[in-house]
């Protein structure tokens, strides 16, 4: 069942003359991990805001078309009504932290209090969320004494504690070290396996290649590609949109002219696919030399 339904969505920010999103149409099934990619200004963050209901509720501008999430039309329900169902983690954690709480623990409690979760239920949900993002040990620290990467994890924990059925993440790993990014993607993968629908805007294509079920590529506010990670990430159209191929894909593509990669083998997007393709060619050419 489609948990997110976007029909003919066009949105223009107040004071702007050109739309940030133009005639966007897609549906997302429940329990999928969908990545949204695109150059900067392509509309990724705007799309996240539209799926969270903050557009049109907080950003007035001009919206045409319809967005429904968990059966709720974003033009008819308030962000408060969405909050229990849809979680949004912003790109810059400084914009997400409440600024009203003294400790990491209280910061995670803030959202739960606003949803009216009982005090009995709260500690377990807070501890579990902090545990998941690896911040349990820092629970007494001030949110403002954390590093950028730690703040980013705190923003994620605050949303995880709300156990939303749809999770929207706008570049959640931009400030994290590689191990931290991998941890975040493993958390996301577990949530997806447990049935959460996740939409993630992300620049790091290697993580997306490994974890996403589907990729929607945007350029200048329009959907230019929508398909499997391998289909999208090896398309020449994403390069035209200012997104470079992974080094794996580049190596295989350049390898064709040198006879190192078979033109009949689909271009790779993971290390495993790349190794398999180069090795297969290696074996074929050595067999040929022997015969």
């Amino acid at each position, binding site marked *: 069942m489609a948990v997110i339904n976007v029909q003919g969505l066009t949105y223009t920010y107040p004071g702007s003359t050109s739309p940030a999103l133009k005639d966007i149409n897609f549906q997302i099934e429940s329990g999928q991990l969908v990545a949204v990619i*695109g*150059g*900067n*200004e392509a509309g990724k*963050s705007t799309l996240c805001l539209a799926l969270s209901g903050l557009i049109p509720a907080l950003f007035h501008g001009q919206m045409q078309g319809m967005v429904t999430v968990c059966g709720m039309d974003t033009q008819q329900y308030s962000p408060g009504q969405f909050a229990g169902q849809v979680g949004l983690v912003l*790109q*810059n954690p*400084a914009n997400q932290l409440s600024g009203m709480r003294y400790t990491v623990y209280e910061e995670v409690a803030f959202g739960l209090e606003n949803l009216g979760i009982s005090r009995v239920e709260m500690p377990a949900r807070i501890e579990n969320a902090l545990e998941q993002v690896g911040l349990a040990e820092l629970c007494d*620290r001030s949110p403002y*004494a954390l*590093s*950028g*990467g*730690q703040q980013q994890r705190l923003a994620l924990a605050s949303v995880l504690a709300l156990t939303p059925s749809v999770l929207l993440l706008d*570049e959640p790993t*931009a*400030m*994290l*070290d*590689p*191990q*931290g*990014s*991998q941890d975040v993607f493993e958390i996301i993968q577990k949530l997806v396996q447990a049935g959460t629908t996740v939409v993630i805007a992300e*620049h790091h294509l*290697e993580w997306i290649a490994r974890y996403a079920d589907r990729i929607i590529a945007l350029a200048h506010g329009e959907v230019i590609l929508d398909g499997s990670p391998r289909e999208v990430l090896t398309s020449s159209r994403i390069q035209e949109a*200012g*997104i*470079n191929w*992974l*080094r*794996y894909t*580049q*190596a295989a593509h*350049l*390898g064709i002219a*040198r*006879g*190192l990669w078979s033109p009949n083998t689909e271009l790779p997007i993971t*290390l495993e696919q*790349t*190794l398999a393709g*180069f*090795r297969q060619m290696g074996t074929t050419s050595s067999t040929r030399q022997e015969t």
Partner: protein
Amino acid sequence: MLIRADDIHFTYSEGEKVLNGVSVTIQPGEKVALVGQNGSGKTTLARHLNGLLRPATGQVWIGDWLTQDHSPAQMARRVAYVFQNPDEQLFHQRVWDEVAFGPQNLGCSVREVAFQVERALDLMDLRGASDLNPRDLGYSGRKRVTLASALAMQTPIIVFDEPTAGLDSKEQEQLAGVFSLLHHQGKTIIVISHDMDFLIENMDRMLLMMNGKIALDASARDFFEQSRILETSGLIAPQIVRLSQKMGCSQVSTNVDEFLDNFS
């Protein structure tokens, strides 16, 4: 301009030792990456270079200046610093004014300021945005304004904290171009980053920070040969390094062309 840190130690008020005996010398014109896990002390070390932080014990020399004898405003003549988060750094209403702020404070003439600002805006592809409010730009636009502000200072040393975070491929290529231009001008470039694919293609020397110390100091190629220390420090080798290692190439490649040469 030579950078020299001698056995520096530093503790924030919360008590944990963040730098625990760091000694390093960086030659003029080097392209050095500072890598390590979140919380390993990278940013703290970098902020010692422009005098924003002073060591509890030990000394930091920038050329013939000892950082503790100079104010951050004086240090800004020698070391420019680009913050990870552009919003910590922007405070003017116009992109042009933001970029002009540094050279104006250095006492440059009106003509010199205009020249430096225009040049920096061109380099960061911001010429069309010079009259806009930086706050009206997207994240990467604001980031490029802070990069332009640092370039306009014309300092011999520039420190970039996570310069590629939030930039798309095209903007990253543009940044790589700016780095190579700065390098040709003889400037020292110090980059804090987690983006190993970018670092291996653009940096010469890698410093790995672990628990407030420099755990490894090597050329980019030698650094990534040491896969064991990378694993224990939470780093993941660049795609091209993993590919060349798994394919059994005799040496680590630093870019796609080199990999294909080594392989065939």
